[in-house]
């Protein structure tokens, strides 16, 4: 009895965030701690709620395009993709082949950029100051390539209903091919600095093990789910755009610890490079944008579209009411479900392990709060 009383006095609450170097955004996690052990982590959301869905429901559907990029700014093109495909499915617009290929190439480039940023940020959380600069160096090439056709470096607003905004030219294709070659040569650097680094392995192996059952219960998707051994990828299981025409694999982890999630993302970079190569080889000619009426009237009824963003399954849900403004627009973001398993997963772990787990989930808080 005395011991438990003593232990009661040893407990205290620590606020991790909302301003914190490693919560990847404005996230508050209230930790009930005992010494170095976290007893109960409770995330508190809503610090960066910017009412994107409300904006989508108050203006015509064309005006929502910039919002899609700002929800997850690190990997904005899949968000663009989901929304334009949703409206195209609703209004039955046919997208030209060339536009679809361009969409796939740019989305995969963005996925690589997002994973490179995640890798750097994750290692920065763990205390290694160098890999983030290597990752940013490689990412800079992607940003330059994408800037040449979209005009932005981060929050892309490149897709339009029926196609893309601007055509890609030969310099883009040459630059992308050069980038693919360059990144493949850089794998060995990352391998030596990070993957084979004994301290990194010690910080990530057997830590934060998410069982497949737990992952499914919380609705986790993306590399987090695949790290636990379940091979579910929207590009393969519910194919959209021209993904069925490409030959790529879905990397899967074994036990669902942080190291597995890391390896899944690193292998996904290679698979994205494969997709880009195949798309560049088979790029068809043709128009890049279909003829679309200026004011799209959304027929009454609902519609749904899911894409594979860098963090998981992203899906848009729309209820139309006959005007060009949606009656209801709902965005299902992957990071929300990925974060939701933290209270159960983080019970009784050490504080540095909590940082490691949060980093391995690859959360972007602005997309959770929208």
């Amino acid at each position: 009895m005395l011991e438990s009383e003593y232990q009661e006095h040893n407990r205290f609450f620590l606020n991790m965030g909302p301003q914190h170097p490693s919560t990847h955004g404005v996230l508050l996690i209230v930790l009930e701690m005992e010494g170095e052990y976290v007893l109960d982590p409770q995330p508190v959301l809503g610090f960066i709620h910017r009412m994107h869905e409300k904006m989508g429901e108050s203006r015509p559907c064309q005006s929502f395009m910039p919002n899609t990029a700002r929800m997850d700014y690190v990997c904005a093109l899949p968000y663009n993709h989901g929304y334009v495909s949703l409206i195209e499915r609703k209004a039955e617009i046919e997208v030209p082949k060339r536009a679809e290929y361009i969409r796939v190439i740019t989305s995969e480039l963005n996925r690589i950029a997002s994973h490179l940023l995640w890798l750097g940020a994750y290692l920065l959380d763990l205390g290694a100051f160098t890999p983030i600069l290597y990752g940013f160096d490689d990412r800079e090439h992607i940003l330059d390539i994408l800037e040449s056709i979209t005009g932005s470096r981060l929050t892309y607003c490149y897709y339009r209903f029926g196609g893309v905004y601007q055509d890609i030219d030969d310099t883009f294709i040459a630059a992308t091919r050069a980038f693919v070659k360059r990144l493949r040569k850089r794998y060995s650097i990352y391998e030596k600095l990070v993957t084979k680094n004994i301290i990194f392995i010690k910080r990530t192996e057997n830590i934060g093990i998410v069982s497949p059952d737990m992952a499914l219960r919380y609705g986790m998707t993306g590399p987090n789910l695949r790290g636990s051994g379940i091979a579910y990828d929207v590009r393969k299981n519910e194919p959209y755009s021209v993904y069925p025409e490409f030959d790529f694999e879905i990397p899967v982890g074994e036990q669902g610890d942080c190291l597995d999630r890391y390896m899944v993302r690193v292998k996904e970079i290679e698979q994205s490079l494969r997709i880009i190569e195949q798309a560049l080889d088979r790029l068809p000619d043709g128009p890049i944008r279909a003829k679309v009426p200026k004011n799209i009237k959304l027929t009454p009824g609902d519609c749904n579209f899911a894409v594979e963003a860098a963090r998981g399954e992203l899906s848009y849900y729309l209820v139309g009411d006959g005007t060009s403004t949606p009656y209801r627009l709902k965005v299902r973001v992957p990071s929300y479900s990925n974060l939701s398993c933290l209270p159960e997963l983080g019970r009784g772990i050490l504080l540095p392990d909590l940082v490691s787990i949060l980093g391995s989930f690859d959360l972007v808080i602005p997309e959770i709060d929208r």
Partner: protein
Amino acid sequence: MDTISILPPELIRMVIAVVIIISFLFLNAIMMGYAERKIAGHVQRRPGPMEVGSHGILQMVVDGVKLVGKELLIPFNVDRTLFRVAPLLSFTPVILPLLVIPFSEKLQARDLNLGLLFIVTMGSVNVMALLVGGWGSNNKYSMFGAMRAVAQAIAYEIPILLSLLAVVLMCNTFSLKEIVGAQQNIWFVFLQPVAFIIYVVAGLAETNRAPFDLPEAESELTAGFHTEYSGMGFSLFFIGEYTNMFIVASVATVLFLGGWHGPHLPYGEYLGVVWFFLKVYFLLFLMIMVRWTYPRVRFDQLLNFAWKYLVPFSLVNLLITAVVVKL
């Protein structure tokens, strides 16, 4: 005048030595700060400071001016005495060991015959500064950092002591001058490689340098025990840390790398300091490179590493040394 003639020459010599050492420490902090930022930059594929002065040489001078000019902020509800004393506590015990280190044959402020023991003791006093700073900041994060620092320092003192004892067993003396003298024929790093490695690793941990920099773990504790310090307080902690690194490197040089021994130079008794500094800065270069290469270890892994690996290895090393010396 009269007063000067009645002062013992020894006292004058010590005063001059202390003044030289303190000015050297600030110069060392400036040089090491610059070296660290440049090396960090090149490891990370960027050039480092380039703007101020040619290739950024004056960067640290400008930083020093900035830090001195900052407002000395004392947060609400802290223990004012402890808060203000902590940086001083961090800076003072690192000056004293430099008085006993033999920079060259004739350049040593004072050769105590327990010089090595004195240095190790001053290293332990260092930890108090972290504890006082963390506690006096009235901040949970700082307290965390301070607790971690104390556990870490206590854990890593033992491998330091044991590895240094191995050298002492071989020379039969604690006096640093005689230890360097005993390395005329062969440096002890070849006779005691295990002790050398253990000493450098444990010394890194003792100075709270990455990968053992948990007390100031930025990503978890937002700068740990020196979160609340600004301006001169922060720079004193900072100078204390660099000086501590310098001391660890100099002790390693004196005990393992032959101190000031090197190819012959004119005025060798004084210019031996050139070889000494070359070796010390080589070790410091290695320490800086390690910081930018490895992530941070977890705290329990840190303590495990000390108690389960370093201590047994250094004990076995000591035993073997004792047996070999006896034979």
